């Protein structure tokens, strides 16, 4: 991207030319991806297209072979995951990964202490209560994760991401396996978080959720970006139709 093409609004996330290989297999082949502050972006693609690998390169679980990741203008390409979390980059996991030995409240308090830097235990407990309330787990604070239902675990995932005080939230298949009404619950929650100014990257197979929620959609196929634009346009794109219908 040349200097002339600099967008008017500063980007919250600017990943360019991301390449990731596993042995001889190229999982990501020069992917560019940007997010503006407060934007809602969908990332879609068939299984194995590199979505998860891309998320891992953004959040710091993997280091790409080439390319760079800018977060709010700062180069974070080689920064560890916990430092990115502290800068305001949070994620939820495709398969919920709660801290099993801790109560729901303690689960929320970990990112509050370690990512959001809340040193006072009293304020941390209060803030945890607020977050649990906002994700609809207010009454479950003292329970263990094992007692939660699937949709409640997804809520805990989002609550834990929220507790890190993020500027950008990556929701990795936060709705997979949920019923229609449960999908709506999670969508409602994401809309509310976005309303508080948090940019959201939604990685999802449920197209109704993606098209309903996202302003912009990026399509990844076999490690390459094949489309990037307004939701309605992208869904009509011939390559996207082929990738989805042709399999």
């Amino acid at each position: 991207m040349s200097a002339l093409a600099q967008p008017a609004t500063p980007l919250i996330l600017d990943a360019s030319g991301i390449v990731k290989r596993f042995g001889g297999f190229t999982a990501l082949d020069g992917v560019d991806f940007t997010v503006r502050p407060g934007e809602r972006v969908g990332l879609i693609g068939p299984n194995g297209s590199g979505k998860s690998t891309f998320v891992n390169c953004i959040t710091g679980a993997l280091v790409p072979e080439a390319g760079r990741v800018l977060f709010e203008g700062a180069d974070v390409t080689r920064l560890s995951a916990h430092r990115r979390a502290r800068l305001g980059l949070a994620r939820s996991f495709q398969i919920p990964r709660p801290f099993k030995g801790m109560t729901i409240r303690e689960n929320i308090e970990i990112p509050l202490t370690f990512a959001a830097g809340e040193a006072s235990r009293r304020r941390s407990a209060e803030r945890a209560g607020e977050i649990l309330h906002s994700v609809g787990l207010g009454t479950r604070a003292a329970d263990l994760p094992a007692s939660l239902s699937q949709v409640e675990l997804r809520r805990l995932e989002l609550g834990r991401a929220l507790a890190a005080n993020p500027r950008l939230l990556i929701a990795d298949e936060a709705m997979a396996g949920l019923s229609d009404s449960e999908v709506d619950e999670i969508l409602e929650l994401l809309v509310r978080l976005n309303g508080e100014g948090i940019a959201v990257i939604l990685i999802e197979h449920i197209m109704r959720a993606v098209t309903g929620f996202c302003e912009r959609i990026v399509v990844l196929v076999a490690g390459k970006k094949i489309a990037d634009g307004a939701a309605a346009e992208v869904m009509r794109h011939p390559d996207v139709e082929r990738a989805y219908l042709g399999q």
Partner: protein
Amino acid sequence: MSMELFGNALLSGLLLGGFYAAVAVGITIAFGMLDIVNIAHPAFIMLGAFVAYWLNVEYGLDPLLAALIAAPFAYLLGRGLYRYYNGVFERRSDDSLQGLAFFFGLLFVVEVSLLLVFGVDYRFVSAPYIGPSLTLGDYSVPYRMLVPFLAGLGVVALIALYLGRTFTGRAILAVSQDPGALRLVGGNPIKIKEAAFGLSIATAMLAGALLVIIQPIEPSMGREFIGRAFAICVLGGMTSLLGTVVAGAILGIAEAMTTTYVGAAWGPAVSFGLLLVTLAVRPSGIFGR
């Protein structure tokens, strides 16, 4: 430093390496391919050594033949052990730490049981190839080293054939790369892993027989092989059988050189030193990706 001394060290190291490949191949299968940290593997090697000793002393069986007879039983033992491990630890969410402690406990249970049955005295076997040597020019190669070398390489070669050519073997390789992949084509990864772990324990039985051919045995010797087996597995790149053979040779030569030029008392540190250096410098091993 004389050339002959060096040549002898190199040769005996290389021969030792073939035996070490047999010691480590079980760890390559269990740890490298199945992700089961069977730290008790060396105890099963000792079990195999004592079974070979017992069959040799009681019934006059050749140690290698004894190992072949015992191997199917070891295979079944391995299958049973995996079934237990899977049922208790792999299905439990926080299994890794507990599983490790479990195998650590098992290591001592097997070792002390052998100690209580056979005592602390050194035990040895008799076979026609223990004693004489093959003379090659300036060098003499004792058959008690040559036989384990060839048998060790043979075991690894057979396993390579099995993994490459049979359905179960290919399924084991598939499971080692991606446990989910096999389920897609309708295989049961648990059954496959069970077979592979059985194979791993069966190799321990054979390695044990090779050990008792090379030297007299006592129960606590097994612990020396923890470092060797894991060093070879890691250095060889975790899942590579060729890597296991090459790393076995490297360790064998390194130990022989250390014994020759530094002193036998430094021997035990060689494998673990090699392991630490590998972990620090190139954790993916020489044949790793």
